[in-house]
């Protein structure tokens, strides 16, 4: 188990290094550079440009720039963000917990709902309820994330006025609320963005879970369980599902990039102050440093997510654990 963990960690470091290198190459393949992109005013004195070019190390030979760049990533600093007037790490440190909160809630809802829907479908395979849920899943699976977010906003925040339209808490009342009311207020603001993200992922989980259960349903141990007289409920929930959950664990790792991509749109629609909103804002300010950092931090999150999925898999499936 320890050996597995160490090997996966080493692979993860290699992947993040490759991502960083790819990003570096792309940055330098692009026309223009951070200085000319940020100081767009043609009247900027050349001395100012030279100062920043020198300060950002852009006058160094390429291999030295690369080493500086790797060092700034390794130290977690990620350079300086012009539009924010702060180190990128400080900007990200504020946003990252908000994104992680949103993702954790969305993942929990999506996997719980997706697994239940998948089981219901597999048990009623070919019946109207299976058809209905399949089409429903496909409908959400085929939906652009930002459009779903907009429609949720329109229906639940503007038409029905059930939930707030934006932010993490009430900008006016939050200051005078008691601790209990604050918790409720935060929860209330979490509902729409988390539900939107969860809906998008649930569809994928349900499709996957249904297929996995149908696969397992054909195997010998399921037939044995049925043959020894167990009820259908016990067969499905205790014997088949326990085995059919294994592939869903892998899906946890695979769903992360999609979820992080989707959070870009969902966060920006609901003005959720996380990495996604930062990313969208960085588009108009052309904040290279921030975008690079977001790409690298995201790849670290994905690598860690896959690591967790691998460990869960090894824990759940003794065959993997024994191979080391």
């Amino acid at each position, binding site marked *: 188990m320890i050996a597995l963990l160490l090997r996966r960690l080493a692979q993860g470091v290699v992947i993040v290094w490759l991502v960083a290198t790819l990003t570096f190459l792309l940055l330098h393949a692009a026309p223009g550079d951070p200085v000319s992109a940020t100081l767009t005013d043609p009247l900027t004195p050349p001395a100012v440009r030279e100062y920043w070019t020198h300060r950002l190390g852009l006058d160094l030979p390429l291999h030295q720039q690369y080493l500086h760049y790797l060092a700034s990533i390794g130290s977690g600093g990620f350079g300086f963000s012009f539009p924010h007037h702060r180190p990128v790490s400080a900007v990200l440190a504020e946003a990252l917990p908000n994104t992680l909160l949103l993702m954790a809630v969305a993942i929990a809802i999506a996997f719980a709902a997706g697994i239940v829907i998948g089981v219901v479908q597999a048990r009623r395979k070919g019946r109207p309820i299976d058809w209905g849920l399949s089409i429903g899943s496909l409908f959400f699976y*085929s*939906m652009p994330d930002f459009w779903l977010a907009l429609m949720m906003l329109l229906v639940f925040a503007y038409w029905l006025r059930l939930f707030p339209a934006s932010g993490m808490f009430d900008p006016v009342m939050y200051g005078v609320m008691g601790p209990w009311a604050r918790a409720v207020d935060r929860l209330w603001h979490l509902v729409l963005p988390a539900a939107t993200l969860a809906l998008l992922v649930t569809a994928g989980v349900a499709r996957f879970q249904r297929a996995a259960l149908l696969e397992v349903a054909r195997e010998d141990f399921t037939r044995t369980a049925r043959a020894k007289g167990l009820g259908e409920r016990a067969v499905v929930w205790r014997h088949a599902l326990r085995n059919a959950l294994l592939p869903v664990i892998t899906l946890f790792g695979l769903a992360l990039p999609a979820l992080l991509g989707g959070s*870009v*749109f969902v966060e920006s629609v609901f003005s959720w102050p996380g990495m996604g909103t930062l990313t969208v804002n960085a588009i108009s300010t052309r904040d290279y440093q921030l*975008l690079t950092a977001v790409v690298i931090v995201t790849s670290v999150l994905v690598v860690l997510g896959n690591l967790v999925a691998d460990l869960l898999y090894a824990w759940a499936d003794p065959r993997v654990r024994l191979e080391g």
Partner: protein
Amino acid sequence: MSAGRAAAWVFSAAITVALCLGLERAARRSSGDAGPWRRALARFHDNRVAMVALWIVVAACVVAALAPWLVPYSPTATPDIVALKNLPPSAAHPLGTDFASRDVFSRLLYGARVSLSIALLAILLSATVGTLYGATAGYYGGRVDAVMMRIIDAALSIPRILLLITLLVLWGALPIAALILVLGFTGWFGVSRLVRAEVLSLKERDMVVAARALGARDREIIFRHILPNVLSPVVVAATLGIANVIIIEAGLSYLGIGVRPPLPSWGNMIQDGVSQIATVWWVSLFPGLAIIATVMAFNIIGDGLRDALDPRQLDG
């Protein structure tokens, strides 16, 4: 409705029906045939849901191709920005007008043209690059394969939308052709992994071993014996990939870095309605529905193709 436009609608409906009936006949006639592609076509034809999806896609492509003759208004002209803006759906404007008094229905049809052609061309590029890369890695194996696949692992650990946002911000306003290139070159990682796995098993088969024993060169073996056999998983992946590219392009255009206004794409049309979503909802609603219908159809066709091309999975 002018007579010319009515005739164009009848014409496009006729073409759609003719194309679909042609496909139906080809499928029905091939049911007894021995070729694997023919048999797959027959199996696909038995899948009614997938056939309906195929009809939808054919109709969308015909409408997109004939858009200039089908639209009631110009998609970019702004006839009266005061009196005709933000009109709700009515007989004159079936899907309403947007903030610049442009007809949403006309823009939707032109948007189909832009969104579908970008997606098709990008996926063609992705499938080609991914197949060549995956075949090379799988065929040569060993260290070459290990390095090539680590690069794929890294590329797949960046959400594609983030990679694209970074690229497009760096490179600034791109013409459509460049946008297609960027979309194509960021979409082949999954395909290459698929092809590599397939090639790894194919190269041990007797036909490849025999070809090598007869002195065939690497390139000959790859192009003559291996690639034709990986075609079916690539076709499935490409069909599902079209669905994905449509959504990604819409997302980028929504963010203002994909297809630039005034040229309509479904994504930037949704953006046009965002600032007034609570009152002028029709501007954002209908392009979204168009995306869902098209993407759902491509997803259903992809699933249907997978079942038809790989009969081993059918009893599932």
